[in-house]
């Protein structure tokens, strides 16, 4: 964990609004693990003022590079998409507590919705490297947002795609195929769940997960100021535990503990 000036190596447009940013970030690349994030200073100016948090999408450890995957939303990300190789960003990271794999599961159910896919690539890379099997459920608005799924060794990963517009995979919410899947495997002790996506999806999966007997981890998002547990801005309510900070106690939490309705 530290603060570094990181050079932009490459910026790749994936979709109308989605970009992948490759950064030279030795220290971060060496120590980061899936589910952690970086806190990025958009520009050396007063407006936008605050840093912006982005999950670590991918780590190229040998090159000392990290990748971010982001959707252009507002002013900060609009400025980001203009950056070119040679520009540099000031990053704090790796931050937060990511996913843990110390359970005895052999197959991971990984569910991503929308930009929730960002940390999931890194997660899948690590799971496969650890010799786990992966069943990957990925939902997006349309097919153009689904990319790069053929890169993994297809014998170790089973992929279920879903799009809201039906342009690729299942036509509808990714939670539908997930539900079908879970109907048969809810008691399977070789499984563990990993989830990242929009709030509505998380709530739905929390409901589904209560009927399963294995563990689920979820990566959350909240508006952040400091990113390091100081400002108390990014609180999430945990059942029986009260508020915890997404940036420093998370962003990954035990799904069943999260009190989505405050």
């Amino acid at each position, binding site marked *: *964990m*530290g*603060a570094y000036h990181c050079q932009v190596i490459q910026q790749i447009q994936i979709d109308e609004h989605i970009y992948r940013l490759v950064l030279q970030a030795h220290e971060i690349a060496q120590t980061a693990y899936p589910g952690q994030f970086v806190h990025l*200073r958009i520009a050396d100016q*007063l*407006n*936008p*003022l*605050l*840093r912006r948090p982005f999950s670590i999408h991918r780590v190229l450890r040998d090159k000392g590079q990290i990748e971010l995957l982001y959707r252009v939303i507002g002013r900060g990300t609009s400025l980001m998409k203009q950056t070119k190789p040679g520009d540099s960003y000031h990053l*704090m990271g790796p931050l937060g507590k990511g996913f843990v794999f110390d359970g005895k599961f052999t197959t991971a159910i990984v569910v991503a919705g929308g930009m929730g896919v960002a940390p999931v690539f890194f997660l899948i890379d690590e799971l496969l490297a650890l010799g786990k099997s992966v069943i990957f459920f990925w939902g997006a608005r349309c097919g153009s947002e689904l990319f790069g799924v053929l890169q993994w060794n297809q014998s170790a990963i089973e992929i279920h795609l879903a799009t809201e517009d039906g342009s690729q995979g299942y036509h509808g919410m990714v939670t539908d195929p997930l539900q079908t899947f879970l109907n048969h495997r809810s008691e399977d002790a070789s499984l563990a769940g990993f989830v990242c996506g929009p709030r509505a999806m998380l709530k739905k999966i929390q409901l589904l997960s209560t009927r399963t007997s294995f563990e689920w981890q979820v990566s959350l998002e*909240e*508006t*952040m*100021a*400091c*990113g*390091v*547990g*100081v*400002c*108390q*801005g*990014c*609180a*999430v*309510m945990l059942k029986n535990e*009260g*508020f915890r900070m997404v940036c*420093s106690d998370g962003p990954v939490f035990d799904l069943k503990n999260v009190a989505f309705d*405050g």
Partner: protein
Amino acid sequence: MVDLSVKIGNLHLKNPVLMASGTFGYGTEYRDYFDVSLLGGIITKTVTGKMREGNPMPRIVETPCGMLNSIGLANVGVDRFCQEKMPELDHLDTVVIVNVAGSTIEEYSEVVEKMQGYDRVDGFEINISCPNVKKGGLEFGTDPEITETVVSGVRKATDKTILVKLTPNVTDIVTIARASVNGGADGLSLINTVLGMGVDIETRKPHLARIVGGLSGPAIKPIALAKVYQVVKAISIPVIGIGGIMKWEDAVAFFIVGATAIQVGTLNFIEPDGAVKIIQGIERYCEKNGMRSIGELTGSLQKG
């Protein structure tokens, strides 16, 4: 070499740059980013009598050159603070000031009494200016009589240095400043955040769950400078300037207007070591202008 040390009450600060309450945790979170002992001092997140969870989410939103927060004095409460946080502060080689608040007048002095015995606590900052709580906070800090009662209560409870943190959300900050002096304050910290609000025009909901929150950052710097100017003209105890300080030039402006020290808040979230650069910048500025001590800068405002 410029002498940057300042004295406020019984406090000796090695330099006049402090971390503002609520923006530096309890002093440990930023240890990996820079050497905290370079700071003049740190002010803890507000400590109250009982633990507080704070306000519902969302608690922060960005605004033009600023941010709104409605954290709501989330803290572990004075007892756990003394048990859990105090030992961590022991390792810090800088002045530690505990920021204190309460929802009753008595709570302030009760909290201070409990901490009075700890050597690690160098002083207290009385927060009667938080916009994000129902009781205490603003309600007290806008009333000169309550202000004086709160401060004199704390004065009886401790012989350590007492700072009073003032709100800008008043018609006449000088009256509140005077009441603090009458109550026995050794110094005044100003400003706390400015009341503000934001709306999400898609959902038509307020950006903050508690609707109204506190504005901080560069946007409020002109407001803070004006308040420091008004208070410094009227009272003679040291004033600590706070509000939108992002670079050493901003800090220098506060000293020129009459601040004895300054606090850095929102900047911590953006540049963890920003305060250290500010200390260096102040020193260079003094050197360049032939000043041997920071005292020569304080109050050096020229006629317009």
